């Protein structure tokens, strides 16, 4: 595959290759105050508390979602023994599994993103106050 460059190449060809790992130089989206904050003891505490609150949030929302999923499962198993409820000819268990679960997934995702962003904003405010 030969693509001719429009302009003549600079003197001496340089072979470009991906570094063995890109993990050591992320594009710097971090500011000086953040860098400083992370190296101090206080900064370390703040980072730890940020991680803890994000983890707690993720676990709570995940647990809520799994509980809701179990509830759906129970409904699918037990509803037919009580009722033959249908919408447009579709029985309730099919409606729950084919359609009903998806808005639930979307809602969980939206709630999580809102809360996670809030956690990060709180952390930013703390760092800036220092």
């Amino acid at each position: 595959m030969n693509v001719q460059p429009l302009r003549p190449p600079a003197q001496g060809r340089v072979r470009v290759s991906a570094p063995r790992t890109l993990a050591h130089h992320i594009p710097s989206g971090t500011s000086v105050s953040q860098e400083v904050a992370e190296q101090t003891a206080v900064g370390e505490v703040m980072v730890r508390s940020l991680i803890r609150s994000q983890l707690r949030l993720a676990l709570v929302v995940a647990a809520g979602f799994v509980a809701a999923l179990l509830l759906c499962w129970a409904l699918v198993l037990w509803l037919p023994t009580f009722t033959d409820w249908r919408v447009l000819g579709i029985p309730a268990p099919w409606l729950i599994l084919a359609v009903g679960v998806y808005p639930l997934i979307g809602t969980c995702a939206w709630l999580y993103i809102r809360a996670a962003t809030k956690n990060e904003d709180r952390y930013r405010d703390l760092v800036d106050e220092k």
Partner: protein
Amino acid sequence: MNPAIGYSALILVSVSTALIGFYGLRVSRTTSDFYVASRTVRPWWNASAIGGEYLSAASFLGIAGLIVISGLDALWFPIGYTAGYLMLLFFVAAPLRRSGAYTVPDFAQARLESSTARHVTSLLVVAVGWFYIVPQLHGAALTIRTTTGLPSWVGAGAVVVVVCLTVATGGMRSMTFVQAFQYWLKLTAIAVPAIFIVLMLSGVTGQQSGPTIPAGTELFPPSNPPSLDSAYGTISLMIALLLGTLGLPHVLVRFYTNPDGAAARRTTLIVLGLLSIFYFFPTIYGVLGRVFLPELAATGSPDATVLLLPGRLIGGLGGDLLTALVVSGAFAAFLSTTSGLVVSLAGVISQDFLGGSVRGFRIAAIFAAVVPFAVAMVTDSLALAGSVGLVFAFTASTICPLLLLGIWWRGLTDAGAVAGMLTGGVLCATAMIVGAQLPIDAPWRSVLTQPAAWSVPTAFLVMVVVSRATQHRRSTTVSRFMSKLHVPERPLDVENPRTSSS
């Protein structure tokens, strides 16, 4: 079926894929473009691309096929496939993007500072990728066989050739365009015929002669009576699908193309929406397939339901056009998932063994596609959704614990990670192989064929216990790395450095 339909659909998809690939190539200028699309892909593009890559043969053909066989219970598959992204969003999306690592092995090395851990992860990633590509090639073989009558190797071979050409020439940036296009192609291909069929059957079109649902047919059979065995199967499947998604190599590599952690989250939210819309349609095919194509379940190729239903229900030119549409959607599914996997595998193989040059990437890409082709040729097609489910169980028992503990627990050591991954991988693979040999009514069969419920917790447990026993091996830079993962980026003044620098 008229073979011309199959041929034209195949050519249509291949040509449009190649065109978009070459268009992308013109804007792919740097090595970084080639590998990670310079991390400047916008959430909508990226989400469409993730959707395009993720909706594989299992989603496009497999779910409907499974509904034909097992009815209501099959609906757990699309739920699991979608909800896997929810877990990815909660636990992995933003931190992994901030880690700056390009592949899972990169992450393992940066987090654990160990090249052994890196190599073990690389091997697992390559194994996962290969075993995920095999069902795609089986799907392609089935599609070509069903629509044109050509031998199986033609379909699988066509996918491998097109994928190698696009990946080796275009790299990641053009792949993003191709994948995004293929999501929308797949959605159109599955939705339009389904809507036509439903309208026709409900009598809105006013056609008198068309097929109708025979009176007294139960379209929606109730689920099988609950048993301990089926309950275990459902739980194990959900664990595999929920946790397996976040270890899939082709899914992870997509997240590095987001500009920052917040964008990674936004992307995931859009992906969830795109998947939810898509998964509404296979159910329609499955339900109608039970009524109109019952012979497929008997002949052992229920996965062809989606391909054959439009032709069966809508005759004439309309039926031919809709069939061509569906076949091209199926082909887009094999192409996009396979190329996504090949890109991520090529990334791993070339970085680990070939020095990371663009040339190495191309060689690795061909290597990554040809090996599963050989495997697919000597193995028989299982039910597509089922065999993809097994790959999810395997990633859930190996790469998922590495990522979750690596991102959220400072105590993870390289020895713990390696021990846990190997334990999970060996347990999971052995159980599946032994389980597949057992007769279908053996009492412990489902415990072995669906190992996720016990192999995933075991892998986590081994990782934690061994890490605790080898505390002295903790990485010295873990604190810095943890803050890099979790501390939000500054909002940048300039969002896209590419456009501003020119």
